[in-house]
C-alpha cells in the first residue's frame, strides 16, 4: 500500500528528475552525479511521509481526514451529510489490491474534498458500507420530516423505502437490477464516443506532427500511403478512406465501451441505496442514496434509436453541479437494448407506468411549429446557397441545399412524434427531441415550481412551454409546446393545489 504514492509521484516528477540528471551531467565532471538519485529519493521520501501522516477517523458525528507533516490540514464532514461514497481503483491500485475512496458531501466549493487514497480493498468496502449505513440511519428522521411536510403528490418511492427500512433495519440485502451483457458492445459504434475519440486522436496527432516539424510526406509509411492514393482514381480513394475511417471509429468506440462499462452492475441495497460497479482497467464503484433520487432520463439518440437501444441516467439531488463528469445526473445504464433500459428504469422507480405509459401528443399547432422551424432553416440555407451561386460559387450548391428540404420535413415529423407528456403514478413524464430524444421521468414531489413561457409565436398558436423546476439533475424539465388547454390540467395533476389560487373561469386575456 506504500507503493501507490511513490510510484505515481515518481511518474509525475519524471520531467523534473530528467532535468536534474541532465543538470548533474552538465555541471560538473562527475562530481554532481548524485543529483539524479537524490531527486528520486526526495520524491519517494515525501510521498512516504504523506502516506505516514495521513489519518482518517470516523466518529458517530463526523468523518475526519488529517494530512500533512509541516502544514497540517484537517478536513471534517458531518456523517449525516455524506451523500455519496465512490470507490475508484486504477489498474495500478488493483495490482496492489488497493482502492481510493471519495466521500462526497454535496459541497459546491469542494477544494479536494474527502479523498482517502490507498486503502486496501477490504477497508474501502467496509468504510463505504459503514458511511452509507450511518448516513442512512441519521437521515431517516429528515426523510420522515420531508414526507410529513404536506406534499400533495403521493410518494410511492419513499413509501416503499421506509417500510423496507422498518422490516430489516440491520441486515443489508442486495438485489441486482442490471448486469452488462457482453453483446451490448454492439451498440458502441452507434454512440458518438468513437467519433469524438477519433477526432481527438487525429487532432493530437496532427499537432504533434506540426510541433515536431516533420512533414507528413517524409515519414515512410505515410509517404507510401500517399503514393498509393495518388495512383488510384478518386472514387476508390474516397471509398477506401471511408472504410478505413469506419473501421477506425468502430474499433475505438468498442474499445471505449469495454473500458468504461465492462462488468457493469447496478444493484439495490435494502438500506436504501443504488450501487453501480463498472470498468475494465480502472474500476469505479458508485453509490447513490435512493432518497436523493428524483427520477430517470431515458435517452435515445437517433443512431441508438435506429438499433433499438437506449441509455439511462438518474436525476439526483445533492451531487456535484453538472460540471463534473457524472454531473447532477448519474449514469444508470450504458447503451443497452431499449427493452432492458425500460425494465431497469421501472425497477429503479419501482413503478413500470412512467416508462410504459402512452404519452399525450401535443396536437396540430405543435406539429405546425416543428415544420415551420425546420423549413425556415432549410429556406435560409437555400437562399444563402442561391446568393453564393450568384457570386460565382459552383451551381451544385443550390441542389445540395434543395436536398435539405426532404431531410427537414423528416426531422420535423420525427420531432413532432417525439413530443409528448403524461402524469403516471407519482411521476411527471415528458419527451422531446429527434436527433437526441429524451424521455424525462421526474418525481412529482421533486417539482419545486412551474415556469410557463410563451413567445410571441407560441401565444398566437395557443402553445406554451411548461417547465418543472427541481433541485435535481438538469434543474429544469420542460414540456415543450404543449397546448394551453393541456398545460394547466397537467400542472395541476402533477402538483395539486399549487395553482388553485391563480385559476379563473373567465376567458380573460391569454398570457
Amino acid at each position: 500500500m506504500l507503493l501507490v504514492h511513490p510510484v505515481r509521484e515518481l511518474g509525475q516528477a519524471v520531467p523534473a528528475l530528467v532535468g536534474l540528471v541532465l543538470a548533474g551531467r552538465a555541471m560538473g565532471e562527475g562530481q554532481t552525479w548524485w543529483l539524479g538519485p537524490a531527486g528520486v529519493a526526495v520524491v519517494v521520501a515525501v510521498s512516504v511521509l504523506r502516506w505516514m501522516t495521513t489519518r482518517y477517523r470516523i466518529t458517530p458525528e463526523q468523518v475526519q481526514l488529517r494530512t500533512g507533516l509541516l502544514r497540517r490540514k484537517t478536513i471534517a464532514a458531518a456523517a449525516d451529510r455524506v451523500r455519496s461514497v465512490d470507490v475508484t481503483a486504477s489498474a495500478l491500485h488493483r495490482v496492489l489490491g488497493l482502492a481510493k475512496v471519495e466521500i462526497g458531501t454535496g459541497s459546491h466549493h469542494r477544494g479536494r474534498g474527502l479523498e482517502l487514497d490507498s486503502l486496501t480493498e477490504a477497508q474501502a468496502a467496509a468504510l463505504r458500507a459503514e458511511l452509507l449505513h450511518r448516513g442512512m440511519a441519521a437521515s431517516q428522521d429528515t426523510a420522515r420530516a420531508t414526507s410529513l411536510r404536506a406534499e400533495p403528490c403521493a410518494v410511492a418511492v419513499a413509501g416503499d423505502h421506509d417500510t423496507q427500512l422498518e422490516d430489516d433495519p440491520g441486515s443489508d440485502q442486495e438485489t441486482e437490477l442490471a448486469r452488462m451483457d457482453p453483446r451490448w458492445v454492439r451498440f458502441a459504434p452507434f454512440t458518438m464516443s468513437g467519433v469524438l475519440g477519433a477526432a481527438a486522436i487525429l487532432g493530437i496527432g496532427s499537432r504533434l506532427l506540426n510541433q515536431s516539424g516533420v512533414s507528413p510526406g517524409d515519414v515512410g509509411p505515410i509517404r507510401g500511403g500517399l503514393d498509393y492514393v495518388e495512383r488510384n482514381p478518386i472514387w476508390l480513394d474516397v471509398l477506401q478512406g471511408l472504410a478505413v475511417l469506419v473501421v477506425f471509429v468502430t474499433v475505438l468506440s468498442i474499445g471505449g465501451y469495454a473500458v468504461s462499462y465492462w462488468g457493469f452492475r447496478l444493484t439495490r441495497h435494502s438500506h436504501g441505496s443504488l450501487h453501480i460497479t463498472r470498468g475494465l482497467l480502472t474500476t469505479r464503484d458508485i453509490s447513490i442514496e435512493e432518497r436523493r433520487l428524483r427520477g430517470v432520463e431515458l435517452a435515445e439518440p437517433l443512431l441508438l434509436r435506429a438499433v433499438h437501444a437506449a441509455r439511462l441516467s438518474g436525476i439526483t439531488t445533492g451531487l456535484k453541479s453538472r460540471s463534473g463528469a457524472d454531473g447532477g445526473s448519474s449514469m444508470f445504464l450504458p447503451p443497452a437494448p431499449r427493452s432492458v433500459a425500460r425494465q431497469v428504469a421501472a425497477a429503479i422507480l419501482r413503478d413500470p407506468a412512467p416508462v410504459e405509459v402512452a404519452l399525450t401528443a401535443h396536437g396540430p399547432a405543435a406539429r405546425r411549429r416543428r415544420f415551420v422551424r425546420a423549413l425556415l432553416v432549410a429556406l435560409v440555407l437555400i437562399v444563402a446557397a442561391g446568393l453564393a451561386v450568384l457570386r460565382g460559387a459552383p451551381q451544385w450548391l443550390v441542389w445540395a441545399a434543395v436536398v435539405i428540404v426532404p431531410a427537414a420535413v423528416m426531422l420535423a415529423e420525427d420531432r413532432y412524434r417525439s413530443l409528448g407528456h403524461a402524469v403516471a403514478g407519482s411521476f411527471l413524464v415528458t419527451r422531446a427531441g429527434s436527433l437526441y430524444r429524451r424521455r424525462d421521468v421526474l418525481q412529482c414531489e421533486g417539482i419545486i415550481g412551474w415556469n410557463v413561457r410563451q413567445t410571441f409565436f407560441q401565444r398566437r398558436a395557443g402553445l406554451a412551454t411548461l417547465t418543472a423546476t427541481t433541485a435535481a439533475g438538469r434543474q429544469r424539465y420542460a414540456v415543450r409546446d404543449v397546448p394551453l388547454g393541456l398545460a394547466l390540467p397537467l400542472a395541476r395533476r402533477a402538483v395539486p393545489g399549487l395553482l388553485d389560487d391563480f385559476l379563473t373561469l373567465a376567458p380573460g386575456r391569454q398570457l
Partner: protein
Amino acid sequence: MLLRDPVHLVSPRAVAYWTVRALPLWIIVLAAELFWSSSPRDHFAVRIVVPALTVVLAAAHLIVMPRWRFRVHRWEVTSTAVYTQSGWLRQERRIAPLSRVQTVDTERGPLEQLFMLANVTVTTASAAGPLRIHGLDRTTAEALVAELTEVTSHSQGDAT
C-alpha cells in the same frame, strides 16, 4: 380554466426606468453606424438609409417595449405561493410554493436608485427557478421582502 394574471402591477416609474435602460445600446449602435458611414467610399443610400432605419427602430422599441412590459410585469404573493409574470415579446409566468423558497433578496442598481425602484429575487433550491420582480416601488419591495421572510421562516426542511 385559465391561469389568471397576478394581481399587483409594478411601479409606473418602471416605464421610464426601462426606457432609460434600453437607451445606451441604441446610442452605441447609432454611433457605430455614423462612424462607419462617415467614410466617403460608401454608397449614399447606405450612409443615410441605415442610420435612419435604426432611428425608427430605436424609437419604436423605446416607445413600445416599456409600455408593453408595464402591462405584462405583475406579481402576487398568497399564503402558499409566489406568482410572477414578466417579459414582453416572450412572456413567462413563474410559480413557486412558499414552502420551497430558500432566499429572498432585494437589490437596487444605480439606475434603479435614480428612479427610486428596487427588484426582488426569490430563489428556490432549483437553479432554474429564481422569481424576479423588477421595477417595484422601494417601499413595496421592502414590505414584500419582510412578508416573504416572515412566511418562509416557518417552513421546515431543506426545501429540495
